[in-house]
């Protein structure tokens, strides 16, 4: 039982970081029906930016973290502003946007690799306050902080999406972008806002994971990319609670797979579960069938 609870806690911790990235991914998909492959790169970029600011300038780690959030959000915005919006204005097919995000992802990954090298870098853990033992289960402070941050952000985002005006504009845009424009909603502004949020979330998550493992490397973006993809689809793509639960489920499954079976199978097993869930419920755990009646 000790192993079970320990793995559960570890799984929830890592799953909550997947959930954060997934939320950004699913929100972009919701408003644009666009698979943003660059989302994982923003996660890696966010971690590297704060590491660079911290180690190169010696500034306060929290200030570095804060600046990296703003910068990554800005890069998220530029992704849309420089490329995707132009494609939308030209009425380019959806596939063009998808390839563009793939290209953006490579540009970000390669730039970071050229600037910092491809070796794994140590990442400082500023929340190394020790650990708490409950029975025989060990919870570290960094885990508690990751969970608390993720939970707080999820609550804030749910509030933004379901209760505020910009959130309602987002949900309108995701249902029918043209009708949203006819309501007087500035769809481009909604999309820009969505990209900024997804960048901010990816950055926060990247930093949390950096602190958790105390290392970062340039492939971390590609690996989280697959996981957010799986989380969002498992939960039902485009649905906020779906991304949250999907991320947690993927995190827990892969941790159990690694703990009980073999760490070599962790990704394979979580994808097997994903496929099984989709076979039973193709729209994902929280996804609903379209009810567009004409």
């Amino acid at each position, binding site marked *: 039982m000790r192993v079970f609870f320990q793995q559960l806690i570890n799984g929830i911790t890592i799953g909550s970081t997947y959930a954060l990235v997934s939320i950004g991914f699913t929100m972009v998909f919701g408003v644009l029906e666009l698979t943003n492959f660059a989302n994982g790169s923003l996660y890696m970029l966010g971690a590297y930016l704060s590491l660079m600011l911290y180690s190169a300038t010696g500034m306060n780690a929290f200030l570095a973290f804060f600046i990296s959030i703003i910068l990554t959000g800005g890069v998220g915005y530029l992704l849309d502003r420089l490329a995707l919006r132009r494609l939308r204005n030209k009425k380019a097919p959806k596939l063009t946007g998808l390839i563009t995000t793939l290209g953006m992802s490579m540009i970000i990954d390669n730039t970071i690799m050229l600037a910092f090298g491809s070796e794994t870098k140590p990442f400082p853990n500023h929340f190394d306050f020790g650990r708490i033992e409950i029975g025989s289960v060990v919870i570290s402070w960094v885990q508690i902080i990751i969970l608390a941050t993720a939970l707080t952000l999820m609550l804030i985002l749910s509030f933004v999406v379901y209760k505020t005006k910009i959130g309602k504009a987002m949900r309108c845009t995701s249902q*029918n972008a*043209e*009708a949203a*424009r006819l*309501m*007087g909603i500035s769809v481009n502004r909604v999309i820009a806002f969505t990209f900024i949020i997804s960048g901010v979330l990816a950055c926060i998550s990247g930093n949390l994971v950096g602190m958790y493992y105390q290392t970062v490397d340039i492939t971390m973006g590609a690996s989280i990319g697959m996981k957010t993809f799986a989380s969002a689809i498992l939960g039902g793509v485009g649905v906020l609670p779906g991304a949250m639960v999907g991320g947690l489920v993927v995190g827990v499954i892969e941790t159990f797979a690694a703990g009980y079976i073999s760490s070599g199978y962790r990704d394979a097993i979580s994808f097997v579960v994903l496929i099984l869930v989709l076979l039973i419920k193709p729209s994902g755990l929280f996804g609903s069938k*379209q009810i567009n009646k*004409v």
Partner: protein
Amino acid sequence: MALLKLENVTVNYGSINALSGINLEVNEGEIVTLIGSNGAGKSTTMRTIMGLKHCDGGKIFFNGEDITNKDTRVMVQKGIILSPEGRQVFPRFSVEDNLRMGAYTRPDQEIPETMEQVFQLFPKLRDRRKQIAGTLSGGEQQMLAVGRAMMAKPRLLLLDEPSLGLAPLVIKEIFDMIDKIRDMGTTILLVEQNARVALRHSDRAYVLETGRIVLSDTAQALLNSDMVRKAYLGGL
């Protein structure tokens, strides 16, 4: 001065010419109808007025002000609202939330009063205000689309095919509403394939054929015109 004025408006889809220099006026308080067959350019006209489609030539004036190719949001703020073809309600929102989105550019505190007016216009929407819009019938969705447009308190209401796919009784109901909306002081530009009903409820009308206005007169005169009868009223 006309409330809405289109001067020589030209619109192209790539190399295809959708509107070739149309002139059209709508005066304050009027119901004006645009009739024409499929592909004549009726919806394109509406979309161009709203800024959803780029106007490649000519000018559009609203209340004397040049609004050609302005952002759709600007049109909405100026009081031009389109209830689009195929209703386009937000299917996953409740009736009430759909209506609320119609008042997106207006202050929140004015919403309850306007919603009450819309419910008086369409009592059925009040009965179904918690229902998810995607599960409404076609006629109810059309009422919701018009109700949502009215939530913006338009000066000029553009209605694109409000009778599309509806039963005759429902069509009658919708057009009775349109009369009531005009009596409330809203000017209406209507696009219809159902020319007979539309003309009966309009003051004036334009006939559009392959991107050109070929005829314009009072609705009464067009109802009696041989050409319109043959082409659009089934020769009866």
